[in-house]
Structure formats: structure tokens, C-alpha cells
């Protein structure tokens, strides 16, 4: 198996762990500012991995990763602000 395939498999495992953690936080009733921050941090890590490795924007001209990762962080920031204000 080549290095790229191994990396993709590793990222898949990380994404599954992140999903399981998010699900577990929901199932165990985690709520409030700290829980929201934790869940959004997991989403940020998962999203960045998908953008950089699955979408293959790692090593591409800075414009494209900046646009897509910037979108991810902006949306997550808006969600965090909205939840913290509404909690």
C-alpha cells in the first residue's frame, strides 16, 4: 500500500473517531458553551482534514485552501457566536 493510501486510511479513522465523539456528546446530554465549543472543534478538525486530504487542497495555491477552510472557520465561528449568545 502506498503512502498516500495509508494517509487516507488514517484520516478516515480519525473522521470516524470524531463522529463517534460527537454522537457520544449528544447521547450523554453534553450541553452548554463548553460542549458547543468541543463539538465545533471536532467539526473544524474533521472539515480541515476533508478539505486538505480528501479534496486534495494540501499543497495547492494558497487561494483555494484559504477560501474553503476560511468558509469552514467562518461558518463555525458564526454558529459558535450564535449558540453562545442564545444559550
Amino acid at each position, binding site marked *: 500500500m*502506498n503512502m*498516500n*493510501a495509508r494517509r*487516507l*486510511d488514517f*484520516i*478516515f479513522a480519525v*473522521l*470516524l473517531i470524531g*463522529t*463517534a465523539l*460527537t*454522537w457520544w*456528546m*449528544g*447521547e450523554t446530554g453534553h*450541553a452548554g458553551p463548553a*460542549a*458547543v465549543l468541543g*463539538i*465545533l472543534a*471536532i*467539526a473544524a478538525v*474533521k*472539515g480541515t482534514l*476533508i*478539505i486538505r*486530504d*480528501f*479534496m*486534495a*487542497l494540501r*499543497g*495547492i*495555491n494558497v487561494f*483555494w485552501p484559504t*477560501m*474553503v477552510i476560511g*468558509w*469552514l472557520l*467562518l*461558518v*463555525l465561528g*458564526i*454558529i459558535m457566536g*450564535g*449558540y453562545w*449568545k*442564545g*444559550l
Partner: protein
Amino acid sequence: MNSPAIADIKVHHPPGDLAIWVFILAELLAFGVFFTTYVVTRMHNVALFDEMQLTLDRNAGALNTVFLIAGSWCVARSVAAIKLDHRAASARWLLWGILAGGGFLVVKLFEYSAKFEAGINLATNTFYMFYLSLTFFHFMHVILGMVILLAVWLKAHRGGYSAADHHGLETGASYWHMVDLVWIILFPLVYVMR
């Protein structure tokens, strides 16, 4: 003589057709507006949103996240395989990706059918208006992504892509990953966070 020019193109442009990336950015913008509207509306209806969220099937949401992540992984492996000129493996990975998308659709249809049988619709309340419209908007994107992947698979199955020429495969893969990326936010936002 050609090598520097080809390397330059690869470094400066994302994988696949540039047009799909303009389309992806437009789609992300649309979903971003949708998510923002959801959050702003929730700020004025926190009790309703928290109460209604508990009526959703979180297990189905998590299972669908696994389907989309697995689908994205399979498609990424398909691209990695074609770069090594492993054409049959590339087509096989692509087919697994399409099947994962099919799994997502089946689970979502079960979820929708349970809600409709319980008499829930767009007019039930603000939360369900958002839940149904937001998830259905995404559902349609999954279908479009699967249609694109199916067209790419038909060509891949016939050996139409190679290590030197797999532009179409990368184009379809990029769109599919966008559909996955959006769900990575949608799942915690609608099903989990409170």
C-alpha cells in the same frame, strides 16, 4: 520543456475542472447562508429548538455521517488508485463510494417517512421547517453527487481514466467531498448541539 508548465498548473489549480470549484464555492456560500439563518432563528427560539431536537433520530444522523465519510474515503482512494494507474481498483473504489451514498439516501428516507407518518411537515413549527428544508436541500445534493459519480464510474469501468488523464474523476470527486463537508457541519448543528 513541458514538465515545469504541467507542474505549475498542478500547484496553482485545485484537482479537477476549475468550473466545478467555482460551483463548489457558490454551493458553500448557499449552505453558509442557510446555516447562519438557522443559528439566528434559533437564538430567538432556543427552547423550541432544544425540545424539537430531542425528537430527531440522532443514531440515524450519526449513521449517515459514517456513510458520507466512508463514501468520501472510497472516492479519495479511487483517485489515489488511478494516480498509480490501477484502473480496476479505481473503478471499484468509486462503486463503493456510490453505494455509501445510496446508504445515506436509504437512512434519510426512513427518517423522513417516520416524520411524515407522525404528521410532521414544513408547517409543524420553525425547527421542523428548518430541519426538513435544510436536510432536503442537502439530500438533493447527495443525489446530484451520486449521478455525477455514476457517470464517472461508467467511464472508469470502461478503463477511460489513466494515471496521465483522470481530470473527470477528480472533478466528480471534488463535488462529492463538498457534499460530505457540508454534512460535517449539518449533523452536529441540527442533531447534537444544544
